[in-house]
């Protein structure tokens, strides 16, 4: 019998016992839905984590330090790593050289310093951090109170929530208000005390003030690279932070080591951001070839991917359990159908149906149930995922946190789930189909 005739006949047969077959199909749909919901959560969470981490700049960033700077990760203990005579300072020249490397989007320094802020005439100690423009894309600024800096060199500040609460428990009221940043500006001694001081690499610090307008309150500081100390409680545009020339922790150490012979400040570290995590490895090598220490979290990213693969696998196994139960439903339904349609099978055989025709008919019936269950199940699974996302977002909103998409149903999951449902149904149909095919037509025709 031709396939379209077979399918037409199978659908007609399925319609005949509509309630039982619908329930069986629903069983398959629930199985597929649980599988899809589980995997969509796995995929969604993986995408969420990957996008957050990717936005954070952890996996597309390379942390660069001068080879003499023993503070950098990966530099090894000082005793085992004598300062190289060829060590290059991580200065402005180095920064522009790194910027010119292929696939590099931006190169920015880690600027962080302890300082004092005056607000409403009261002093508050805090850590100031410079934020590169790219951190705007970081997920940490999603759902923040107020907004991001209006420009790269705006005299504006974003406060970390806990710090904002110290200034005023009603954090919303802070937006639009001014505060005064008091800091120690680093000034080279060369301009004031002559060559001797210049050779020593020393500098003087001058107290300065900067008026900043509060434009936003953010839950946590975005992880803008790594290698810094503490977390920034007061965030300012990186360009503004650089112009402040505020004295940082490493300045004093550099003076003591005499590693900064010029009045040009050397960076403690630079974050090099590349176009995608896959380019990190190659760029890291190039940076090392330039004579700097470089470190990235790519290995951590690989571990993350492995973790999620195992996570997805486990979710898939749990999701498949429901489908396995549904498979038994298909076997049961078809075996019942054989009993009920015994005489019909006899008639078909008497009319010239070969064993293969009967087998295929039951096979197609199982396949149709699997296909319908698969399609419906994917839809149901997607709805479950959306409902979970909706419920999660209600919860997050109550916690005053930004919304997230925790489930994702990519095309491969749709195709895979439907294909899997079809395959499982066909396997479930194997036994009933071959049992139907083996029926003796004379016995089948005698059956009442």
């Amino acid at each position, binding site marked *: *019998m*031709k396939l379209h*005739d077979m399918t037409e*006949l199978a659908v*007609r*047969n399925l*319609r*005949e016992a509509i309630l039982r077959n619908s329930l069986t199909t629903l069983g398959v749909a629930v199985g597929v839905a649980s599988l899809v919901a589980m995997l969509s959560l796995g995929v969604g969470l993986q995408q969420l984590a990957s996008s957050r981490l990717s936005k954070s700049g952890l996996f597309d960033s390379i942390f660069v330090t001068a080879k003499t700077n023993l503070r950098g990760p990966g530099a090894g203990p000082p005793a085992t790593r004598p300062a190289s005579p060829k060590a290059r300072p991580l200065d402005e020249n180095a920064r522009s050289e790194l910027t010119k490397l292929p696939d590099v989007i931006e190169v920015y320094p880690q600027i962080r310093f302890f300082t004092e802020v005056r607000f409403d005439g009261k002093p508050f100690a805090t850590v100031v951090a410079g934020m590169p423009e790219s951190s705007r894309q970081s997920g940490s600024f999603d759902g923040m109170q107020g907004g991001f800096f209006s420009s790269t060199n705006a005299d504006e500040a974003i406060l970390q929530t806990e710090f904002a609460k110290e200034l005023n428990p009603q954090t919303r009221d802070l937006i639009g208000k001014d505060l005064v940043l008091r800091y120690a500006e680093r000034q080279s001694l060369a301009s004031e005390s002559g060559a001797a001081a210049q050779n020593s690499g020393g500098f003087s610090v001058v107290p300065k003030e900067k008026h900043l307008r509060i434009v936003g309150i953010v839950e946590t500081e975005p992880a803008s690279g790594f290698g810094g100390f503490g977390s920034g409680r007061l965030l300012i545009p990186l360009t503004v932070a650089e112009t402040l020339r505020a004295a940082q922790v490493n300045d004093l150490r550099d003076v003591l080591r005499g590693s900064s012979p010029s009045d040009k400040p050397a960076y403690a570290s630079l974050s090099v951001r590349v176009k995608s995590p896959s380019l990190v490895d190659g760029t890291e090598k190039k940076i090392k070839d330039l004579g700097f220490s470089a470190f990235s979290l790519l290995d951590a990213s690989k571990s993350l991917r492995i973790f999620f693969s195992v996570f997805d696998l486990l979710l898939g196994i749990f999701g498949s359990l429901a489908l396995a139960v549904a498979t038994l439903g298909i076997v049961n339904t078809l075996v019942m159908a054989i009993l009920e349609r015994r*005489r*019909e099978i*006899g*008639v*078909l*055989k*008497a*009319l*010239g*149906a*070969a*064993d*293969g*025709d009967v087998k295929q008919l039951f096979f197609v019936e199982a396949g149709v149930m699997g296909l319908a269950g698969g399609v419906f199940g994917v839809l149901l699974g997607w709805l479950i995922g959306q409902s979970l996302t909706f419920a999660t977002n209600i919860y997050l909103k109550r916690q005053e946190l930004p919304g997230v998409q925790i489930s994702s149903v990519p095309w491969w999951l749709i195709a895979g789930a439907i294909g899997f449902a079809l395959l499982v149904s066909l396997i479930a149909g194997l036994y009933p189909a071959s049992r139907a095919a083996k029926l*003796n*037509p*004379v016995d089948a*025709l005698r059956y009442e």
Partner: protein
Amino acid sequence: MHASASPTDQAATPQGTIQPAIQIDHVSRHYAMGESSIRAVDDVSLAIPTGEFLALLGSSGSGKSTLLNLMAGLDRPTSGAILSGGRNLAELSPLELARYRRNTVGMVFQSFNLLPRMTLEENVELPLRLAEVERSERAGRVREALEHVRLAKRTGHRPSELSGGEQQRTAIARALVNRPKILFADEPTGNLDSATGEAILALLREIQSKMGMTIVMVTHERHLAEKFANRLAVMGDGKLLSTSANASQVSSHVATVAGQ
């Protein structure tokens, strides 16, 4: 009119020279039941000439339906040969046997065996689907078969909406639609009142005359067999007890065969 059947007599045909539609040669069909063996058909030999309307008579359990199933390719003999179209059915593969049932023979049953969820038209179309006849050709073939049984106007009805006689006529149309050479009817009047039963047999007789078809009918209603069949074969305890030409119908058979 009645004569005892010796093996040689059984195999002889009334016309002798005409190629038999079916030749049964020392066929037996035994069933195992526990430790004993039941001989449903026991060493039967019989030749059925092309175009003949043969009635197989006998009491319940005489083996007539078993013999019909063997001839229709629904069952296989324990021993012996059943020749049709030059092939021994006992030696055919299951697939070849299915093809034989599909293309060479048609079957009509006592309980009609129409599929209840299908319309009359769809029931008749079923053998064409199995034979993979093109969709475009099917409608014409179904109409033609239904016209033969005078049911062309009730194509959209379901079996439950038809009378017993109409259901049996539908079953006949279904058996005819693949234009078989041999029609097997197992107690076709068993579920019908006598008038309707006679009408059905008259229809079978008409089809036999028009299409030159060989018909083998199992019945226990002797008067109907005598009225419509060309030849009667009587079975008892699995054996063929006698075969006899039906004088009143032999001439019509000769005319049918001559007409071919």
